[in-house]
């Protein structure tokens, strides 16, 4: 197992958000997290790279193991963790700098300064993110001039440039048009050959199309998890059934 979550609880201040989460996420797969908004999907996702640590009143207990190491353990360096666990956000957030510098950003902050090496990685990452052909001749223009879909693929390129193990995606297509969404979905199925992907999505079709495993969240609990096929065709829990049939959420 790439990620193993055991009895994980989390909250902000004295507001309990996640309750006793247990989940196993296998290597080189796409796991979709579905559930109505406000049920804690983002909070859970942001627990996996400890982004929640940025909120001062965040607290949690239980374990999240990545490669069998507890990421909330004392010996964990958050910088290394986040290098290893990349994140793509709901709103595409390229930095206000050139396309090239965006992709080179992670390499530079992690101490790589060799220009030749950086340019190789930039090209490779942009190709892997299926963006290279569109930006090849404007690498040094500001990334903010790209379209929303291109910006999101750039964020994916920026994430894979530092060669992470895991990529977390928080509703990466929710602000995109259908064509850009399709491109990102194709990209996701391409990327899972090399990375383990956890994908929060609001879109049932997207979960069905893109994921191997699905976990259904409701009110901070995992109601049901397993093979996507099983969850959608043969859900065991009434609540899951209701949700995927569109009866609420």
């Amino acid at each position, binding site marked *: 197992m790439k990620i193993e979550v055991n009895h994980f609880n989390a909250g902000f201040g004295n507001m309990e958000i996640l309750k006793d989460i247990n989940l196993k996420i296998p290597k080189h797969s796409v796991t979709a997290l579905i559930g109505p908004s406000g049920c804690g999907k983002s909070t859970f996702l942001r627990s996996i*790279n400890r982004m929640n640590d940025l909120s001062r009143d965040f607290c949690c207990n239980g374990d999240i193991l990545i490669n069998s190491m507890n990421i909330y353990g004392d010996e964990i360096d958050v910088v290394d963790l986040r290098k290893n666990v990349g994140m793509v956000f709901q709103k595409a*957030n390229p*930095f*206000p700098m050139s396309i090239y510098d965006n992709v080179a*950003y992670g390499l530079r*902050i992690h101490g790589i300064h060799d220009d030749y090496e950086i340019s190789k990685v930039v090209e490779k990452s942009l190709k892997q993110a299926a963006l290279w052909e569109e930006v090849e001749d404007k690498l040094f223009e500001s990334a903010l001039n790209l379209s929303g879909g291109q910006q999101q693929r750039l964020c994916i390129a920026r994430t894979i440039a530092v060669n992470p193990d895991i990529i977390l995606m928080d509703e990466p297509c929710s602000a995109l048009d259908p064509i850009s969404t399709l491109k990102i979905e194709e990209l996701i199925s391409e990327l899972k050959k090399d990375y383990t992907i956890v994908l929060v999505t609001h879109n049932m079709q997207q979960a069905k199309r893109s994921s191997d495993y699905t976990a259904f969240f409701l009110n901070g609990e995992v109601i049901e998890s397993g093979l996507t096929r099983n969850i959608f065709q043969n859900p065991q829990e009434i609540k899951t059934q209701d949700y995927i049939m569109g009866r609420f959420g």
Partner: protein
Amino acid sequence: MHVKSIQKITSFWFKLSGAITLAILMIIVSYILIKGIGAINLEFLLTKPVDSGREGGILPMILSSLYLLAVTSFIAIPLGVGSALYMAEYNENHKLEVVIRFISQVLASVPSIVFGLFGLAFLIFFLKTGWSLLSGGVILSLMSMPTIYQVSEVALKSVPEHYKEGCYGMGATKWQCITSIILPTAASGIFTGIILALTRAFSEAAAVMYLVGSSLEMPTSLLDTGRPLPLHLYVLANEGISMENAYGTAFVLIAIVLTITILSNHIISKYEIKLGV
């Protein structure tokens, strides 16, 4: 009234007030430039004043002003931007923030002559630093800091949260995030504040008149006495020494301030195009 006619009236009002502001500025600036240009020649720019400034040039004044600008930049920029950075990114004590903001608002509205008198009492009489450009620069720094602090704090706080998240999400440390994302993104706002504060300091006579010694000699170091352009202008006009040279001095002062402002606006817009914001 119809929405349309309200729109018409407000739009007219905006245009009118814009035009009035522009006109006032143009009238003042062109009046001084026209009155002053007669005094301008190479001798005026490159020699010392003779006979208290009735004759000769204003080179020592230009140099004094530049020295003051250098001291002020050297002290006020790091302190102003540094404390804004601390408030925006490190401080978690909301009360401290409110207090500091209040103090800087008060300081920014203290009349410059009060800064001058404070400098005289504190630096010259109490600390006995002696009259010098350095003493003047220290007081100008105190005067400039609140503006730099306030504008920088706003600029830093308006850096979008999602840039920072992206940055921390890549595994950046706080310091890396500050230097690579936060400061560059806020740079044009911070720079605007710096220019605003520095041009004001550059045009200041009252704050430094009791501190710089007002000598007519060529300053060779910061510890020398000197007389910046605005003070020279004030003395020439106030003591009725030479109105012609007073206008000439004003011409040079305005020309330098205009150049700094236009140049910095140009740099800022270039920079913003580069960032793509």
